[in-house]
C-alpha cells in the first residue's frame, strides 16, 4: 500500500519543546513535532516510551511542565479534555471506554452529546425541535454505522460483542463528534490479523472520506508503516526519529531502539 496524496502543508497541531514529569520521573523530555492537516501521523516506540503520555498531552489530560502546544495557531499551555473535544479533537482508548450494557447505536449516539442543543427536558419528552434534532443526529450515527459495517449489531449490547467489534464501536463513538483531529490509542492492540487489516482500512477510509487528521499510537511497527504519512519515534521519553516511514525505517537510532541496543 503506497500513499500518494497531496497534503495541506500547514500544521494543525504543533508541540514545541514539551516536557512532562510525574514527580521525579521524566515521562517526556523536550519533544517537538507537528501534525499537518489531513495526514495520518503515527507515534511509535517500545513499551514505556511515553506514547500515551504524549497523546494525553495533546488531549489536555496532562499539562506540560515546560514547552507549549498550539492547535490551529492558538498556543495553549493547558487545555481541558472537554475543551479539546469542543475544538474538534476526539480520541479512542486503548482500554475501551464504552457503556457495556448499552446498544451499539446508543453508545455512538453518546458521541453526539456535545452537538446537542436542546434542553434536557425537551429531549426527554422528544418534543418539537428536540425530536427534529434527534432525527438529524440519528442520521449522522447511522452513516457511521454504515461506514463501519456494524449494521447487524445496531441493537446489540456492546458488552456482548467481540473485542474487535468493540474497538470499531469505540472508533464510531469518536467519529460521532465529527472531529478534525482524531487520536487513536493503540487501535490495533489485541486484534488478530484479519481484524487488524479491517481496522487499517477503516482508518484509511476515515482519513480519505471525511478528511480527518489522524494521530495514532501503535507499537506494532509493520501496521503503522503501511498506513501513515509520517512517523514519530519515541524512546525513553525522547524523540529519536521523525519522518516518512521509509526514512524512519532506515534511521540507525530507530533500529537500535527496536533491536534493543545499548543506549
Amino acid at each position, binding site marked *: 500500500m503506497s500513499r500518494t496524496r497531496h497534503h495541506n502543508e500547514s500544521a494543525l497541531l504543533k508541540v514545541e519543546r514539551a516536557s512532562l514529569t510525574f514527580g521525579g520521573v521524566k515521562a517526556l523530555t523536550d519533544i517537538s513535532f507537528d501534525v499537518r492537516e489531513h495526514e495520518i501521523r503515527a507515534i511509535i516506540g517500545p513499551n514505556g516510551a511515553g506514547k500515551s503520555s504524549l497523546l494525553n498531552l495533546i488531549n489536555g489530560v496532562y499539562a506540560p511542565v515546560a514547552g507549549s502546544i498550539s492547535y490551529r495557531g492558538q498556543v495553549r499551555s493547558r487545555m481541558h479534555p472537554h475543551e479539546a473535544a469542543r475544538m474538534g479533537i476526539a480520541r479512542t482508548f486503548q482500554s475501551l471506554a464504552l457503556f457495556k450494557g448499552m446498544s451499539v447505536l446508543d453508545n455512538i449516539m453518546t458521541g453526539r452529546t456535545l452537538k446537542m442543543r436542546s434542553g434536557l427536558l425537551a429531549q426527554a419528552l422528544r418534543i418539537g425541535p428536540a425530536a427534529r434534532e434527534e432525527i438529524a443526529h440519528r*442520521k449522522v450515527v*447511522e*452513516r457511521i454505522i454504515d461506514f463501519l459495517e456494524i*449494521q*447487524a449489531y445496531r441493537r446489540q449490547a456492546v458488552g456482548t460483542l467481540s473485542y474487535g467489534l468493540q474497538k470499531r464501536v469505540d472508533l464510531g463513538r469518536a467519529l460521532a463528534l465529527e472531529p478534525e483531529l482524531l487520536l487513536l490509542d493503540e487501535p490495533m492492540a489485541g486484534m488478530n490479523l484479519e481484524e487488524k487489516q479491517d481496522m487499517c482500512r477503516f482508518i*484509511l477510509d476515515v482519513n*480519505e472520506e471525511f478528511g480527518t487528521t489522524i494521530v495514532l499510537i501503535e507499537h506494532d511497527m509493520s501496521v503503522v508503516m503501511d498506513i501513515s504519512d509520517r512517523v514519530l519515534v519515541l524512546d525513553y521519553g525522547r524523540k529519536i526519529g521523525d519522518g516518512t516511514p521509509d526514512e524512519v525505517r532506515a534511521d540507525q537510532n530507530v533500529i537500535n531502539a527496536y533491536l534493543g541496543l545499548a543506549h
Partner: protein
Amino acid sequence: MAQEGMAPTAADTFPKLLIWHARVRPDHPALREKDLGVWQTWSWSQLATEVRLLAGALHTQGVVRGDHVAIIGENRPRLYAAMLASQALGAVAVPMYQDATAPQMVHVFQDAQIAYAIVEDQEQVDKMLEVREQCPELAHIVFDDPRGLRNYDQHGLVSYEQLRERGIEFAAANPQFFDEQLALGVASDTAALFYTSGTTGRPKGVVQTYAALIDRVRAATEFDQLGPDEDVLAYLPLAWIGQNIFSYAQALYTGYTVNCPESPSTVSNDMREIGPTYYFAPPRVFEGMLTQVMIRMEDAGRVKRKLFEHFMQFGRRIGGRILDQKPVSALWRLWYALGDILIYGPIRNQLGLSRVKVAYTAGEAIGPDLFSFYRSLGVNLKQLYGSTETAVFVCMQPDGQVRADSVGPPAAGVELRIADNGEVLVRSPGLLKEYHHNPEATADVLDAEGWFHTGDAGLLDADGHLRIIDRAADVGRLADGTLFAPKYIENKLKFFPQIKEAVAFGDGRAQVCAFVNIDFEAVGNWAERRGLPYTGYVDLAGKPEVLDLVAGCVDKVNADLAADPLLANSQIHRFLVLHKELDPDDDELTRTRKVRRRFIAQKYQVLVDALYGGRASQYVETEVRFEDGRVGKVAATLQLRTARTFSPVARAA
C-alpha cells in the same frame, strides 16, 4: 389465460415490462433497500426514470446492441437498474458471483468478451483491475459505492453518480432515444448470460432469451396465483438463476416488490422486518434456519423445550395434513391451533416466515425431515425442479400434492421423458438457446428433437410426479452391484444440525465411507455447554468427544438406511471428521455450495486410502486459500472411526 392486471404479451422484454408497470402502477413499490437503518422505496415510476437516465448514459459510454455487460455485487437497486438499462439498449446482462476471486472471473470475461462492468464497490473494482491485466478489452468499469475509490485514477473508471449526470444531459438532448431503443427489443433477443457453477469443468455461459425467461415466470405466476402485492427478499447472488428469476424476471412480470437487505450479515433481521410472502431458497438456507432454532431450543428452559418437542412431533403428523387440506379431526385441529399460538407461530415469526404464502426450495434434494419441519410449522414449503438451462421451472408441486421425496408433476408447457439410462429429459419453452461460444457443449445437452438432457437421474411415479435420485453421473454401484446414491446418504447426515457437509464414497467399492464437516457454530455451542475447551476449528473437529457425537449421528443414519432394502448395503462403514471446512475458495464446493465429490476424493486421496485401508489415524496437510487470495497451510492428524452397522431390517408386510 392471463389474470387481471397481468402484463400484456406485447411487453415481451424486461425493459418493456418495466415501462408497462411504471404506467399501470407508478407508485407501487418496485424495490426497497434498507439504507442507514431505514427501508427506502423505489416505485416503479422511479425505477423507470432511473433506467431511462442510465440507458442514455451507457449509450454515451459506447454500449451497443449485443454487447455483454457484467453486473457484480450484492442485491442493490442500482445494480438492478443497471441490468435493466443494459437490456434496454439491447445489451446482454452477465450477472456474476460477487464472491468469486479475480482469477475465477477471468474465464468469464474472456469467454463473453466483456468490455463493460458495473460493480458495487472498491472490493469489486480491485478485482476488475486485476482481471483487466489479462482481459484488456475490459475498458469501462462503473462503480456504485465510491468509498475508498477517491484516489483511483485508472482509465475507464467512472462512478454511478457521474454516469447518471451524463444520463441526465443525454436524456435532455435526446428525449426520444430510450423509447426508440425499447421498441427495437424483441422477445427472441438474448436477455442474460448465466454462467453455471459447473460441478465439473469450467463454467459455461447459458444463453437465455426474454421469451424463455418470461414464459417460465408467467407459468409460475399463474400456477401459484401470485400478484403485484407479493414481497420477496433478494439476498442470494443475482448470478444464480434462482435468485435472478425470483427477484428480477418474475418481479418484472408480476410487478411485485423486491426487498434488498442492508448487508449480508443483517439478512435474518431484515427478513423478519419485511416478512416476505413469496420465498425461495436452496435447502442449505432452510437448514441454516433450522440449526438456529435447534441451538436456541437447546439453550431454552425445560418447559419450553418439552413444549417444543411435543408440538413438533405432533406437527409432523398433523401440520402437513392441515396444509394439504386433508380431513383432520376437530380435536386435533384445536390442539394444532394451540400449538400455533405457543410454538409454530412464534417460530415462524422469528424466522420471518409469518407472511409466507408460498415458499419453494430447489437446487438440491432436501432432507425429508428438514422438509417436514417447515410444513409442520404451517409454512407452505414446496419443491420445484429446474436448472439454469431450463429457466428454473420444470416441475412444481401443486398445493395439496406436496411430498418430500418428489418434485411434483411437469409445470405448464413442459414435456418430460425419462431416458433409458434413467436420465431426465425436458422439452420446454424455457430451454436455453445455447451455451455461449460452445457448440460442442450445446450439442451434448440439446438433441435434435429439442430434448434437454438434464444430467439428473430420476423416475416418474404412479401419479406422474418426478423423483430425482441423484446426478446421473454420480449414481454408482457398490462392488456387489447394489445401488449407491451418495447424495442421498450425505443429505441424511446433513440433517443433523451438528453436521454441515458430508461426502460419501463407495462407487465400485465394497463399502461406503464418509467425510464429515462439523457445523462450527452448532458444535462449538455444544462444546461450550459441556465445558469442553477448544482453540479453534481444527482443534474442535479433532476432539474425541466431537467424534463420538458424529459417530452417534452416523449410527442413526445407518439404522435408517438398514430399514430400506434397496439401500441397506449403503450403510456407512467408516468415517472421519475433516480438519477444515470445505470451501468454494478451495474449489471443494461449487459457488452454490454443492460438494465436488471427485475433486475432494483426489485432493484428500490419502484420507480416502486410509479409510479403506483400515488405518486408525492419518496425518494430512492441506492448502487453504483466504478470501484475499493468500495461501496458507492447515495440518492435522485425523482419527478414523468405524461406525456401527445394522443388519437389514426385514420389511413388515
